[in-house]
């Protein structure tokens, strides 16, 4: 079988959680897989991460280069293309770096590409059988990927259990990135503005999604939140529509919250949204679509039209006080 690699991102000298998930994923493709980790960056943080990973990976490729100090996908892609063997299987994460890096990498390596894999069902010859989702998680599909000429596969973060065995005692190999000149220059990261309410500290959240249909209807959500003593948060479409501030958005592209109770109204529950909910809160979902993916992950579900149900709930809470 082909050689396996895992491109691992890191921050503040610590490897991304996906580092251990990718080992599990590789073994689900091929139980005998030996995976080489790849990290890019510069300075002492990079050394720290590379050393950390030797516990889990038999070999860690370290690309130390000032041009890689910030993870600019255009630069990383060139370093990888300059170094990866033909026909290899490269795993990385379906996140904002993976989406930037991986599709083009598959073209440059002339290999197959599958994004956002949620499960692997093994190998038949050179075909990898895997599972992914479509239509915002409403349906799943089995996919056959011909990896005979190599494959680039991005994994959904958090779905493969971490391999905690840490028994690899591997070694770090310094790699030369080669020519990494690009036509895209990283400038800076602009940090998100803090809003009037800090939802990352809220104990109770009423979170509203596309199902609210109209900006004027937000009033009933605010009333419910007031009755419960909760703060109002939301999913991405509400921010896209400019109905609430970005500082109210829960999800991987918004804020990570850790309330005790999370009441999701009219939210379908994409993995990007659910990725922003931590600390195992009690999740209640109200949605008129019984197939909404959020019902797979919520503790309690109610199939109702939120526009009619929320005012009744608010009234009943106020009466019960």
């Amino acid at each position: 079988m082909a050689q396996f690699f895992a491109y691992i991102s890191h921050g503040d000298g610590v490897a991304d959680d996906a580092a251990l998930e990718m080992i599990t994923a590789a073994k689900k493709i091929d139980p005998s897989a030996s995976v080489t980790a790849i990290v890019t960056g510069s300075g002492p943080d990079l050394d720290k991460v590379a050393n950390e990973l030797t516990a889990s990976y038999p070999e860690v490729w370290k690309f130390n280069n000032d041009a890689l100090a910030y993870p600019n996908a255009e630069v990383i892609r060139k370093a990888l293309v300059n170094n990866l063997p033909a026909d290899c299987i490269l795993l990385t994460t379906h996140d904002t770096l993976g989406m930037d890096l991986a599709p083009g990498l598959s073209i440059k390596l002339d290999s197959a590409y599958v994004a956002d894999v949620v499960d692997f069902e093994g190998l038949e010859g050179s075909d990898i059988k895997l599972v992914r989702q479509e239509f915002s998680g409403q349906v799943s599909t089995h996919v056959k990927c011909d990896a005979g000429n190599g494959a680039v596969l991005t994994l959904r973060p958090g779905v493969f259990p971490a391999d905690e065995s840490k028994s690899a005692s591997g070694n770090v190999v310094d790699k030369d990135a080669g020519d990494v000149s690009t036509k895209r220059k990283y400038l800076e990261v602009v940090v998100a503005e803090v809003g009037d309410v800090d939802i990352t500290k809220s104990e109770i959240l009423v979170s509203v999604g596309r199902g609210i249909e109209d900006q004027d209807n937000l009033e009933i959500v605010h009333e419910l939140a007031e009755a419960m003593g909760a703060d109002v948060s939301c999913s991405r479409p509400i921010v896209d529509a400019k109905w609430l501030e970005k500082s109210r958005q829960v999800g991987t592209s918004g804020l990570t919250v850790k309330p005790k109770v999370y009441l999701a109204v009219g939210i379908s529950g994409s993995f990007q949204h659910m990725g922003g909910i931590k600390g195992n809160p009690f999740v209640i979902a109200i949605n008129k679509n019984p197939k909404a993916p959020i019902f797979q992950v919520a503790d309690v579900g109610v199939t109702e039209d939120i526009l009619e149900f929320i005012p009744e709930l608010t009234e009943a809470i106020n009466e019960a006080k």
Partner: protein
Amino acid sequence: MEILVCVKRVPDTSENEIEVSKDGADIERDDLVYSVNEWDNYAVEEAIQIKDKIGGSVTVITVGDEEAEEVLRREMAMGADNGILLDDEAFEGSDGKGIATILKAAVEKGKYDLILTGAQADDGAAQVGGMLAAMLDMPYASLVNSVDVSDAKKLKVGREIEGGNQEMNEIELPCVLSIQTGINEPRYVGIRGIRKVASVEIPTYTASDLGLGADAVGAGAAKVKRLDYFVPELGEGAEMLEGSTEEKVAKLIELLKAKGGIK
């Protein structure tokens, strides 16, 4: 600036419950409402705003059948100048790379300074823009949520990254950008607007027009094949509250109180 925007006609998930057909070979498509992919609509709006600012033209392009033409007309009603339909039976069954290959061939028939795609479409792969850029050897930035066109040679673009932060980049033209939702507020298109462009001719290119052989596109070339659709077995799943609305409300309040959800 000459701008090309790649768009796709997709089932509108906000209007439909997606159901798997009995044999799992497809989703139930009979009663589906189709529309332009949401991300693409933002991309078209961004292109029109750039054109309004500094001049040039906006062309919308799609790989699809004659029904996909309605999506092109909708985007032309928004203000795109031209539409191009890429339609051939040989394109059916293409994977992401196949679609990018078709688009690349069409890009090379024109001359564009800037190519936009939506960040992702109905299959959630977010792949075609990055593939197209690599095939064209152009620089690429994904998940773009701001574009500054004040320089004629390079753009300043913001990328949406984790935590609501924004990564700023300088990118040389020509380039490919995938556009994230929320970058702008796409304008409303009325029936009158669509009628205005109803008779505008939309050229159609086939595989042979684009010089594409059967080995490059379609099911034969696809390394990635969807085998079936299925509804995942729910793990634990939510405990669904049953009964009348009143009963559900009562149960919910009981649960909220028990879990500390009412202060």
